[in-house]
């Protein structure tokens, strides 16, 4: 709520002029918007790249579960006086390690993951009820607080994104091999189990930083939607990863921009533009057929 008040205060002095450059400059005069753009961009690039592997490895449910584990962590952290980000990171990382320990492709064990997911959500509700402060903390964890990101969080988010992207670039070829052709990779001595483990930890940290932007409940819009759309656009992994990060960046930027000049939540715009991109890629084959027929 606090963030919405900040945004409404900013909106009262700035209205949309239809001069995009001018409107952008006005928007970026506000430090909270600059922070939102920097952190949002870092998370979008990271989520777009990691999301490609989440979708390709069919680990969407595991990523979803990790965000709920993060909810319990963030809510618990607030109760004991830590920052939500600290709680998010702690819980998602431990959650990823436990998931990895479940065994081969532990992230695919739907029923076990579902059971843990609902328990974590319940735990989060308990922590929220124990917290004596503002209800806005819970709202932020569930739906994101992109407009209320502190300078320290921006530095941490950008730093985490850079480190994880470098690690993923270094391991890209092995990760692709293990994700698309695990059996043959295994037969050639590629440590597929270790890669699976490491990937879950990467997902955990990505979820933790992405929750700040989009929240626990809407995390799919950055982690899965852009990648799912990109995969429909290209069967070449490098191009699909590039497309996924581009879509994630675009929907974040457009969402922030539109959200600044409208009284509705930024998270809604990010999810709505992501959904629109995905629909467009779903409609493409029909459009192609129509063009060919006509």
């Amino acid at each position, binding site marked *: 709520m606090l963030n919405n008040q900040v945004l409404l205060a900013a909106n009262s002095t700035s209205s949309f002029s239809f001069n995009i450059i001018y409107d952008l400059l006005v928007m970026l005069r506000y430090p909270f918007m600059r922070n939102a753009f920097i952190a949002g961009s870092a998370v979008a690039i990271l989520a777009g790249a990691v999301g490609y592997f989440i979708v390709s490895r069919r680990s969407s449910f595991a990523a979803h579960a990790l965000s709920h584990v993060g909810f319990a962590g963030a809510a618990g952290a607030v109760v004991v006086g830590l920052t939500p980000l600290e709680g998010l990171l702690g819980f998602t990382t431990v959650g990823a390690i436990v998931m990895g320990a479940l065994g081969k492709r532990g992230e695919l064990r739907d029923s076990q993951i579902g059971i843990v997911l609902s328990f974590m959500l319940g735990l989060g509700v308990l922590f929220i009820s124990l917290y004596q402060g503002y209800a806005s903390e819970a709202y932020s964890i569930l739906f994101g607080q992109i407009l209320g990101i502190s300078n320290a969080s921006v530095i941490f988010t950008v730093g985490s994104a850079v480190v994880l992207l470098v690690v993923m670039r270094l391991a890209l*070829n092995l990760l*692709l*091999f293990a994700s698309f052709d695990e*059996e043959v*990779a295994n037969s050639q001595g590629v440590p597929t189990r270790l890669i699976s483990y490491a990937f879950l930890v990467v997902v955990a940290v990505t979820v933790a930083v992405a929750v700040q932007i989009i929240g626990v409940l809407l995390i799919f819009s950055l982690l899965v939607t852009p990648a799912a759309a990109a995969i429909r656009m290209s069967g070449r992994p490098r191009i699909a990863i590039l497309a996924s990060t581009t879509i994630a960046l675009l929907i974040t930027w457009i969402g922030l921009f539109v959200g600044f000049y409208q009284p509705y939540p930024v998270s809604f715009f990010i999810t709505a533009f992501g959904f629109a991109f995905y629909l467009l890629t779903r409609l493409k084959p029909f459009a192609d057929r129509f063009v060919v027929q006509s």
Partner: protein
Amino acid sequence: MVDLVLAKDLTVGYQGRPQWSGANFQVLHGEFAAVIGPNGSGKSTLLKALTGQVGLISGELRIDGLDVGEGRRKIGYVPQRRNLDQDTVITSREFALLPHRARRLINRSKSERAASEALVEESLRSLGIADLADRSISTLSGGQLQRVYIAQALSQQPELLLLDEPLSNLDIRASAQLAKSVSELVRGRKVGVMLVAHDLNPLLPYLDKVLFVANGRVVCGYPDEVLTTERLSDLFELSVEVVRDSSGRIAIMGDFSEAHHA
């Protein structure tokens, strides 16, 4: 010349429990060997022992004179199952390039990249699927998919090609065509093949050797020598009947499962 595959008194299994034991067999360079036997007898285990995915309990297994850890670099492996579905969107070319690219983490030189791409193109062409190079593998038929898998394996220039039930989901015509293609390709390149199959008949025109896996044992020899009623009955100590029709097609009958559990 060193044997391409040499097993001496080999026992293999999971968690110390043998699946079969005392196996002695050899496959030579350029030989086409079929691995047959009842379900669950350990045919796939044999291939996995060669790729180092299943541990040896005792005995010796060498690939071109090397132990499994070193020798598996000479193998092109097509597993029985792959964890792929409709949502696996990757083109045939990119799929075939995966093992090439994974050999180096970063900074493969331009010439290395070009060499890998040329090998993949050549393999796709030789299997008659060059036109499928830009199609996603999720849109291919079972027969086309098997050809992509084999192209991936062959593009790595193996000396030994391990194919685990590549014919199992194909109709009679597609099975015969694939068996012929594989045979022609490997003969030209002097690549040895070990192919797991349930139905031996599509392979009969091309076979040099048969490995029959049943009842915890592996028997190896030339088809006419191994696939006889007397030999199999004698080897497995139960009533086995090998029937051949007028066109040379073979059927092997006998209840191996009961004998194995007895």
